[in-house]
Each structure stands twice: as C-alpha cells, then as structure tokens.
C-alpha cells in the first residue's frame, strides 16, 4: 500500500499539495506516482515567475520507462523550483513527500483549493 499522509491535499493525477501558513503552497508527486514511474532520472521544472492555470502542464518527470507530464493542481505562480532534484532526481523515489517537493507556488485562485482531494478521497481513487 502506498503512503498517503493525512496533512496533504491531492489530485487524481497523483500530485500532492501542502498549504502553508503564509498562503503559499508546495507541490510534488505522491508515493503511488513515484512507485508507478519507477526509477526517476530527470525532473524538468519551471522557473520562478512562470504562471500556470489549473490543469496546465508545469513540468515533466522522467523515469527509465517513460516521461510523464506534471499538471498544475491549481492556478498558480511559481515562487521556486526544487533545484536539489537536478542532481538527485532519485529523491523522488526515496522521499516523495519531503525532500523531493517540486515547486513552491503562490495560489492565484484560492477558490480552486476546495476541489482538491483529502487523504481519504485520494486513497479511494488508488
């Protein structure tokens, strides 16, 4: 069974979102997603300042087997991408919810947050 922490929100596309106290959010992919991808070899992430609508492709995660698009779970502006993944993409396999966060963003349409799944809701789609 894959790990689904209770304190995060999720999408059906297997991304997680952590809402931080300062109104920013941190986004990554779930344990289920990393297991399905297998050995991650590369993560292509956007530069700070880029703006995405809900559902836009914001990056790519690549494993030995395939390249998969990353979808923006909410409308957002990129504040920071996780540079550590450039040199250590395998962090995505080892620590998908912590050191392998992918982007930190400003949520530009907070109303969209209510559509995200909670841990129970996400577990139900697995």
């Amino acid at each position: 069974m894959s790990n689904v922490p209770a304190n995060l929100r999720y999408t059906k596309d297997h991304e997680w979102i952590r809402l931080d106290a300062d109104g920013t959010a941190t986004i990554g992919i779930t344990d289920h997603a990393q297991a399905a991808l297998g050995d991650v070899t590369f993560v292509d992430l956007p530069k700070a300042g880029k703006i995405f609508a809900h559902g836009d492709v914001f990056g790519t995660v690549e494993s030995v087997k395939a390249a998969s698009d990353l979808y923006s779970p909410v409308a957002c502006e990129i504040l920071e991408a996780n540079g550590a993944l450039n040199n250590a993409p395998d962090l995505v396999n080892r620590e998908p919810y912590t050191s392998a966060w992918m982007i930190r963003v400003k949520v530009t349409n907070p109303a969209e947050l209510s559509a995200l799944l909670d841990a129970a809701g996400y577990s139900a789609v697995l």
Partner: protein
Amino acid sequence: MPETLARTPLYALHVELGARLVPFAGWEMPVQYTGIIEEHLAVRRTAGLFDVSHMGEARVRGADAATFLDGIMTNEMASIRIGTARYTVMCQPDGGCVDDLIVYRLAETEFLICLNASNAPKDIAWMRSLIGKAKVEIIDECNDWAQLALQGPLAEQILATLTSLPLATLKRFAFVIGEVAGAAGCIVSRTGYTGSPGFEIYLPSTSADKVARALLAAGRPLGLIPTGLGARDSLRLEAHYPLYGHEISERISPIQAGLGWTVKFAKPAFVGREALARQAEGGPPSSVILFSLDDRRIARQGAAIFAGEISVGEVLSGTLSPLLNKPIGTALVAAGYAGSADLCVDIRGHRIPLLIATAPFVK
C-alpha cells in the same frame, strides 16, 4: 476488448517476488521487481535471473533441414556445428526483417530456433510457406519450453552449483543438454542478450518453477536477484543488440541495422539476397546509429532527429544507461547523415546534440 494475456510457468513466482507485471507481446511479463537501475547493475556486477519464457521455439527437422534454413536465413546454416548456435536474420524478399533469431543445431538434420515472442506465430507460418518440396517439418514448440536467462559475471559460478554439465569449457554460442537442479532435458547455452557473460536455459515448462527457485536460492548469497524486461531492454541497448520492432523490422533491413556481418552473400540464394545485395553495394537509404546524450532527458522512440533544420530521422530506442549514467539510444538516420557531427534530437522542444558512438557501450 483487450485480448487475454498468456502467463509463463513462473507467473506465481513473479507475484510472490512482488514483480510489476505488464502486457508485453501478448504476455503478462515482469517489467521489474525492485527497480530497473538496480536490476541492470546487478547483471553487470553480480548476476540477474530473467524469465524469458515468452520467447518462441520451433523445431526444424528432416533430411533437407540445413539447406532449407540456408534458403530462408541470411547467415550460414549448414556450417553450424552440432552443439553450437548462430545468430541470424530471416528476411522478406525486399530485405525487410521477418525476425532475428538464434538457431541451435541439435543434430545433423535437426535444429531448434528461438523466435521473438511477438513474431512467433508469423515466423512459423512464414517458414512453413517456404517449405515447397523440401524434406523438412516445422514443429511449433512454443508452449513446450520455458526459458530462463542467467546473466552476469557470477552466472557460471551460480549455475555450476546446480548442474554437472561442463560449463567451464562451454564456449560462447555453444550449448549442452542435460540436468539442471534435478530437471532433465535442459538446454544450457552460453548466449545472452545483455552484454554480460551468462547462459540461456531452455527447459521443459513443467520444470521451470523448480529450476528458477533453485537458481535464486543458490545465487542470492552471491548477489543474484530476479531481473525484469525493463533491465533487459537497457542492458541490450548498452550492448547495442537490436530489438525487433525497433532497430530491425519489416522496414529496416539487416544492412541498415548494421548487421551486415549476418548476411552471407557467398550463399547462392536466400530470401532477400538481391535486395540486400543492392543495399550493401549502393548504400542503404538510411541506417541505424548508436548515440549517447550529454543531458538528463531521454530521447524516446519516435523523437525526431535534425541536421540543422532538416529532419533526417527518428529515434528507435532510448533509455538511461545505468553504466554511463547518461541517456543512450539508437536512431534511423537518412543516408549521408549517419556520420554527421551536428545531429540533434528534439525532446519536448529542446534540441540536444547526439554524441555518436562508434562501438557498443559494453563489450
């Protein structure tokens, strides 16, 4: 409706080992157990055990077996010595590949042929259609045999604990028949599809589970792990071995694929000879190159190859080489561009220069 997938005799073992099973060539096969990179490196450093029971087998026997095979294969068949095997391509009249195969000579008038899983029914029908008046029969034995590939530098040490067959003196592309882990009638062949030393073991389907478990038990302490088709693909690509449907196909001939050494024009006649001779003399319209990338992105099948702004080809296979820790791949490139120094591949809008390799990444 998805067709029903076939399962190998090791299906229960794969499930027990936690394999990720995927559809492949009509079979439900393990793509990985613990991870492709770990499994790949185990084969390079210690040993890996692959279930390749999806591969097909056909027995060709009869007074004319050798001459019949010489008429349908590009490589020389009559000169194969009993107890040895030879890699060959079987071509269409236009030079395109029906399949690539390994032919084992069991006796003067008897051969066992290993076929690609996805091509096996087509191959057998093709061979039968060419029998004509030859005194030969072709027996479909795909369901009779299981096949294990024990590959890696420790393969011989591991296998030697389970058989008294003379492994140490067995040369590359030679085979012996006998008992492995108490199972009689096994063909043990020093062949492989990884670029590392090792064996392929053809064994009666009913013995496969027992032998696979015995090999894993004997090899685990030495570092043997079960390995899946994912690692098999990255291993064969490092060794620049072709995969049907990628580097060779009905539209890519052995001459284009760099397999000219398997095409023996000295033979008087074989299917595809004229077309292949024209390609060999005049140069083929396109040819297969091996490359690496100084990047992290993997160039995957279908990615376009450019020389400047001209599209000159496409990627046939691509993966990450765990050995180099760089992407590697093959591409089909139009005549005149194969040696070009300024080829690039387009990966999601990024143009990345190809570093053309003149030799496989493993010997």
